[in-house]
């Protein structure tokens, strides 16, 4: 495992206007190529942590950096460009666009970036990934014509579209039955391993934890409290 973390977070304080919610994270690191699971009860800030790491949400004076790139110290546009290129995201509800085919959904990060275009190599890599996930014959279908498991695999492929360095997954198998959930998680981690990206997966499923190199509990890394 490389010494320099893929992403690190320092001194994050999360509050919401009009709410007593307060969460403080003093330090969190995700090493390169490391696969980490995060567990914790609902409302413990797991999804918030993912949003902070991805630069979607700011957290007070928090310092977020990914290698040389300072997420917390860069402009919103720079963070968006970094996120598209370097971060893969898998959402709990998958969030595929219904009007695009599976293949177009996989290529969505390229479509919205405005600056990066998929190369022939990207196409080949993503087709190979889709083949490995068993959905290569379904790529011209729209999400409504796919099963939930197939949609899940499309979402995983989309998160890998730009060959990211960091993969952030928010309960990616929450709505699958145990058998399919295990299969999806195996595929996800295998894909992450093959592209060498650091993986951070939020999950409630304790049966999955054995697959990860490290498991963190939210109450270990975050301090919850209503007062400052």
């Amino acid at each position, binding site marked *: 495992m490389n010494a320099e973390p893929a992403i690190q977070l320092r001194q994050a304080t999360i509050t919401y206007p009009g709410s007593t919610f307060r969460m403080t994270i003093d330090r969190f690191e995700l090493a390169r190529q490391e696969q980490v699971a995060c567990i914790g009860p609902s409302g413990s800030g797991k999804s918030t942590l993912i*949003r902070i790491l*991805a630069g*979607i949400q700011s957290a007070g004076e928090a310092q977020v950096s990914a290698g040389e790139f300072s997420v917390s110290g860069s402009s*919103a*546009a720079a963070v*968006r*460009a970094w*996120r*598209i290129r370097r*971060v893969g*995201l898998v*959402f709990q*509800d998958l*969030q595929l*666009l*219904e*009007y*695009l085919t599976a293949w*177009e959904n996989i290529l*969505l*990060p*390229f*479509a*919205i*970036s*405005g600056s990066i275009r998929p190369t022939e190599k990207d196409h080949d890599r993503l087709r190979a990934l889709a083949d490995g996930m068993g959905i290569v014959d379904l790529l011209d279908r*729209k999400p409504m014509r796919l099963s939930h498991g197939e949609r899940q695999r499309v979402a995983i492929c989309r998160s890998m579209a730009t060959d990211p360095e960091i993969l952030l997954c928010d309960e990616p198998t929450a709505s699958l039955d145990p058998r399919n959930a295990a299969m999806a998680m195996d595929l996800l981690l295998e894909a992450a391993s093959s592209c060498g990206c650091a993986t951070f997966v939020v999950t409630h499923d304790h049966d999955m934890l054995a697959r990860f190199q490290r498991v963190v509990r939210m109450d270990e890394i975050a301090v919850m409290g209503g007062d400052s």
Partner: protein
Amino acid sequence: MNMGLLHLATRRIRHEWLQAVVLVLCIAVSIFLPATSTMLMSQYNEGLMDRAARTPVVIGSRGSRFDLVLSSLYFRPVNIDPVSMAVLERSEQEINGVLVPLHLEHTAQGFPVVGTTTDYMFQRELVPVQGTVPVSLGEALVGADVASSLGLAPGNTLRTDMVNLHDLSVPLSVELKVCGVLPETDTPDDQAVLVDLQTTWLISGLLHGHVEPQDATEDEEGVSLKTDSVVVFNPALDQYNSIDMENIGSFHHHVDPDKLPLSAILLYPRDAKEETLARTRINEPTLQQAVIPRRVIDDLLAQVFKVKRILDGLSIVVATCTGILVVLVITLSIRSRRQEHRTLHMIGCAPGAVTGLVSIELLIVLLLSILLAAGASLVAVALAPDLLRLIY
């Protein structure tokens, strides 16, 4: 423009095609209505006014000046009382200018038959592209539309439409021989069958031809009595309904020449003073009227523009309703697509790009609407001359 967003926008429109079709149709209608009515009005105005401006004065019987002008300039089938040839002769003596008589009662295979003199062709600058102007009884110079729609060329014939089935003195139909074809002028002349005045009187039954008395035999149908000095014909006598070199000399009338009817007389006075004098002389003491077509058409168009204003008002209502519909659809669309927009934002799409995506979709819909409206307007304007002929 971000081509990726353009791709997303087109995919979304294809996916939600029914919504897009409804929007395109609504917007297209709200563009089409005012655009087309404006273009049509402009074309209508131009077409009517151009011909009116080229005709200084029209003389006809007293009555509706609109009917007189629409009939004599645009050959519209309206009933106007005739004036007699005497009016023409008197006018020729009193007015210094060119007087062109018109007789406009008949049609030939649906096209108006215009009885006139060669002065009409001269004043309207009509020179046949094929053949010659009509100089003999039964000859017809046909407009470009008549020639193309009936497939006529010099040497062909066409028949006049029946005037009155129950009047034995009127021929059922007269065969006209095409002597020439006019070029396309985009005026009512394209739809006209121009003949000599005598020919229209023949169609009216005021002129007729039959077997010469000296050639008639007593046992012939239609001959009641024949002696050395007298031949008495009866109504069963066959009248010629086509004219050829052998029978053309037999055509004659039994009416006082001064009483032969005319529908109108076009007057091209020598100068403005003559025009004023002519209108004074004709309008003052007689049963006739002399009108300036340009003024009549101005008054007519003023009425038409009142209708246009109503149409404009309706267009504003339609546009307002469409605007409300578009805003409603966009608002609902944005609301129902919050999750999609959030996904795009989380992946890395700029907030402006999400707005841009919606804007591009709207722009495509607008573009399609404009194209549809423009296409429909062009078709409507292209068909307008035919439509206007149906109206007037």
